[in-house]
């Protein structure tokens, strides 16, 4: 009797929190199918009374496509660069130490904790002097830099976990260092690499602060910043719901597909980072 009671309490707690965590998603999704009239109706109906798709059609107008393309291009190039550079550097920190490499590693560990606010002003001045403000490249580069330290730690851990004998036998077989890294070590570190790719995808896709500072022209903005400009404009509510729904889908789908990897990778990474 007593035990039965506690089990019910546990499930009530979990069900309530699930409602709290999922409501915003469902609300945005439902609103994206409602007409303007229905959204502004008082009292409102949570569920759409009739499902319409005009909100999704109207995405094609306005700046939405620009924002979307910017987000996609910045994220894809950023993730690729982070994946390549962090697996190179991670391998070197794990297996090719040189004088001073340890100091660099410690420095990387320290910068992870600092808020981006500390870097923003020099970033802005640097990009302004190079003409990189309001360009996609101008957002790709700092995103890569900020994502690298954490990714390097994950890749380093992945390479450390591979037995040394494998590398040694590859070298006896006449593989050069680069070949060993590319042909033998990198495929074996693929779990780390997948974590890095997923993790940097989330971070760059959702990045707001640097984009807010470095992209002030609408045409150069990614979704995270561009959509916030429209939040106050009443007419956009339905369309905005549709865009937000679409923008949240990629990370959610990836999370559901790679859940185990994400959870393990993130908790592992935060232990080491």
């Amino acid at each position, binding site marked *: 009797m007593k035990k039965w009671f506690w089990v019910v309490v546990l499930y009530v707690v979990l069900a309530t929190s*699930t409602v709290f965590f999922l409501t915003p998603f469902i609300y945005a999704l439902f609103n994206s199918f409602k007409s303007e009239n229905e959204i*502004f109706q008082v009292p409102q109906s949570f569920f759409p009374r009739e499902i319409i798709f005009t909100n999704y059609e109207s995405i094609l107008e306005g700046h939405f496509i620009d924002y979307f393309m910017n987000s996609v291009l910045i994220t894809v190039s950023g993730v690729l660069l982070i994946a390549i550079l962090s697996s190179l550097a991670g391998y070197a920190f794990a297996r090719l130490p040189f004088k001073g490499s340890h100091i660099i590693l410690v420095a990387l560990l320290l*910068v992870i904790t600092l808020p*981006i606010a500390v870097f923003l*002003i020099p970033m802005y*001045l640097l990009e302004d002097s190079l003409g990189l403000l309001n360009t996609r490249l101008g957002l790709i580069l700092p995103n890569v830099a900020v994502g*690298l330290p954490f990714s390097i730690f994950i890749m380093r851990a992945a390479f450390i976990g591979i037995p040394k004998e494998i590398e040694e036998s590859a070298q006896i077989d006449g593989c050069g260092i680069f070949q060993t890294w590319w042909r033998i070590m990198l495929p074996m570190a693929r779990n780390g690499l997948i974590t890095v790719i997923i993790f940097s995808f989330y971070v760059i896709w959702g990045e707001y602060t640097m984009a807010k500072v470095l992209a002030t022209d609408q045409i150069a903005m990614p979704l995270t910043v561009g959509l916030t400009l429209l939040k106050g404009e009443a007419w956009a509510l339905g369309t905005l719901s549709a865009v937000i729904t679409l923008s949240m889908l990629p990370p959610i789908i990836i999370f559901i597909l790679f859940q185990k990897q994400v959870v393990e990778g993130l908790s592992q990474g935060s232990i080491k980072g």
Partner: protein
Amino acid sequence: MEQVKKRKKSMSLQRQKRLYGILFILPAFIFVFAFMFYPIMYSAFMSLQDYNYVTDASPSFVGFENYKNAFQDPTFRVSMKNTLIYSSIYFISVMVISLFLALTLFNVKKFNAFFRTSIFIPIVVPLSLASIVFTWILQENIGLLNYFLGDILGLEQLTRGWLTEGKTAMGSIIGVGLWATIGFVTILFLGGLQSISPDILEAAEVDGATGWKKIFYVILPNLREAYILTGIWAIIQALKVFVEPMVMTHGGPGTSTLVMYQEIYFTAFTRFEMGYASAMAYILGIITLVFSLINFHINRSREDI
């Protein structure tokens, strides 16, 4: 002779490895140097200058004047106070609620994966977009929360403009911060719970520690590592709060949700006082660093006892 040759060969391999080590790290280092290491140093230099990017031709040295001014600046002080309020409430709430949820999940088998997924999902979506959705939910006339409180629960007296009143605006921003991050902290705590050896739990039960006693005397003291991990993460997360007030309230109403990060942003990128803003950013950076170290130290010294 043979040995000497071998040593020579391994020497050159060693040298080659060092060379490749440098080559492999170099590209990543250039990125991190240009956008992080160099900015840290440049910010330090800039924080000692008086420099308006729009009106001044070049920076002029003013020593620690910017730091002194920052601590006397009423707006910056308000933003410090707000950041402190946000951080302390956020920190305590996120630790307590996440630990509580982790303990709950730890004791539940059916639908466990579903609950875990739904609690965790907020951290993977862009926070600025979630903040937009929350702005609607909290809106006075068409918002979902007021609809739920007023029309469904019949608690008309509780409905209000959540983001247009100072106190509830701060509360709302804390709520969104919690919404976005509780899942992550819960997963970390869950990892801690799962790493407690079953022997300890069994031994405790044999000794008669069950229910609450087991939780308070056996489980909670065994989560030390999880406390360090989540503690540092939560503090850093709290101090750098920026997106929610930017998107949801713009620091308002008045200055009631203006946080340090925002004041740095406004000083640097709407008033273009680069020197002054750099000093403010350094103050925030140092506070972040100090809190991380304190937390680390407390948990470490506890371990020694």
